[in-house]
């Protein structure tokens, strides 16, 4: 009897959960569906949900009209470049704080976090003017530099919380066996740290891909990543829902897939290890 009740309860809870989940996901689903409609069908009233003439022409047209692929490459270069550069700087820093903690380590970590609290408008003008004078406006290099710096605290923090979980005794044992600092890093630490580094990389690529303050303010045409590419669709010309949908789908698809894979690490990364 009790079992029957709990099954009925699970059915009810499951239905409710699915309804809510689909409602939250609906704007994305609707965008993807609309991207396969013709422009006329996209604004048809009443709108058709599945029974329309599926077409791929919007995708071709978006590529042709606004060169999706170039913006996609800009996004890839900027997000991956800033992440790799950030890791290069952050791995040694996090390593040293996790394994050779000093009296001030906690203060340094908190201070790094505090730089993240600096609102971007507080430094917008000097960065803009400096970039203008250095010829870095609208360049991938410029954006890689800025995004590396704004995400560096998160990278250091995430790596730190991962490294902290590697038992220090292993390093001591290796040292007893005569391992040098270098072979310690290469043979002992690296294999144990790879999963943490990989999740840090994924999360940071997501953050950099979707960053929309600096990418909008520091790029014009040449180095514009997908965030700015989509923003160019904000002033509509004629019928454009289907094309907007196709462009949107192409802009979010890569990161949606990466994001689904890294959802577990997301919590730890975004709360700076405060919630695991």
């Amino acid at each position, binding site marked *: 009897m009790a079992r029957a009740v709990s099954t009925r309860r699970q059915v009810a809870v499951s239905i409710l959960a699915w309804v809510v989940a689909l409602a939250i996901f609906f704007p994305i689903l609707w965008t993807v569906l*609309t991207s396969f409609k013709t422009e006329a069908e996209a604004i048809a009233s009443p709108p058709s949900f599945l029974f329309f003439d599926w077409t791929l022409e919007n995708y071709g047209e978006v590529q042709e009209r606004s060169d999706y692929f170039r913006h996609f490459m800009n996004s890839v270069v900027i997000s991956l470049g800033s992440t790799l550069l950030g890791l290069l700087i952050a791995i040694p820093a996090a390593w040293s704080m996790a394994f*050779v903690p000093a009296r001030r380590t906690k203060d340094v970590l908190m201070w790094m976090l505090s730089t993240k609290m*600096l*609102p971007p408008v507080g430094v917008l*003008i000097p960065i803009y003017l400096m970039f203008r004078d250095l010829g870095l406006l609208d360049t991938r290099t410029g954006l890689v530099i800025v995004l590396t710096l704004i995400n560096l605290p998160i990278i250091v923090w995430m790596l730190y919380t991962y490294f902290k979980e590697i038992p220090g005794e292993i390093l001591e044992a290796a040292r007893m066996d005569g391992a040098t600092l270098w072979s310690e890093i290469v043979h002992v630490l690296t294999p144990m740290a790879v999963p943490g580094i990989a999740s840090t990389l994924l999360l940071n690529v997501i953050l950099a891909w979707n960053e929309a*303050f600096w990418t909008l303010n520091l790029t014009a045409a040449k180095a514009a990543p997908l965030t700015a590419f989509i923003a160019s669709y904000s002033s509509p010309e004629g019928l454009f829902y289907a094309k907007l949908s196709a462009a949107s789908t192409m*802009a979010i698809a890569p990161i949606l897939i990466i994001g689904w894979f890294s959802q577990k690490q997301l919590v730890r990364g975004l709360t700076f290890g405060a919630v695991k």
Partner: protein
Amino acid sequence: MATAHSRTAARFMLSPAVVLLLGWMIIPLSMTIYFSFLRYNLLMPGMEEFTGFTNYRFFLTDPAFFEALVNTIVLVVGVLLITVIGGTLLALLLDQPVWGQGVVRILVIAPFFVMPTVSALVWKNMFMNPVNGLFAHMAKAVGLEPFDFLAQAPLFSIIIMVAWQWLPFATLILLTALQSLDREQIEASEIDGAGPFSRFFYIVLPHMARAITVVILIQTIFLLSVFAEILVTTNGGPGYASTNITYLVYVQSLLQYDVGGGSAGGIVAVILANIVAIFLMRMIGKNLEV
């Protein structure tokens, strides 16, 4: 035991990160402070002169500033209310055994990965547009007059868009916290005859308190700087109805070329964010396992 040698090496490894972040903080910020005391417009080069606190006086007494400050607070508080309450309810729901739990989680988390410009344009055009948007179709279907969201209630519309993006974040973190709750404690309370409500308020909620605080404080930092959603939907309008501090500074500096005034605004934004940040640092610092 760390040797003197490894301590030197450690300091050496830490220094690039520290030097870069220090530079990133100090150089531009001190330039902003310097500019904020100048009369400096990019359209009048060579005319820069020291003006004391004039820029601050103009920025702070501009009616637009007050409106933007109120909008910033309404935006932050509105999104927080929706995401924290909604996120708690969703976390409680998803913590139950549900068929296809993995897929449900994937659907719920998805909006967080959508870039702000996409989410804003999709909501603006395909849902909130008074002629062709889905909401307009739905209103017409039941015989109602379509509502022009972005013209009639611009700030509310932006709150909806931003809340949609942040609801998954709150849900995910609160769910993680919920899953670490001791089941035996729940069972014990059931045996003692506690109902679902008292169980929620006396056991579940106190357990989630820290995660809720973390959600509130981290979201606040990001929500104070909402920018792209405003840029691609309303441009801050009509009037200043959907302008927040971040957007106001952007307009002043990059659209009106008023470097001095924009810098003063930027410093005001920094001070406001710092007031919030102090709470966040205390909170996370207390729970930090170093």
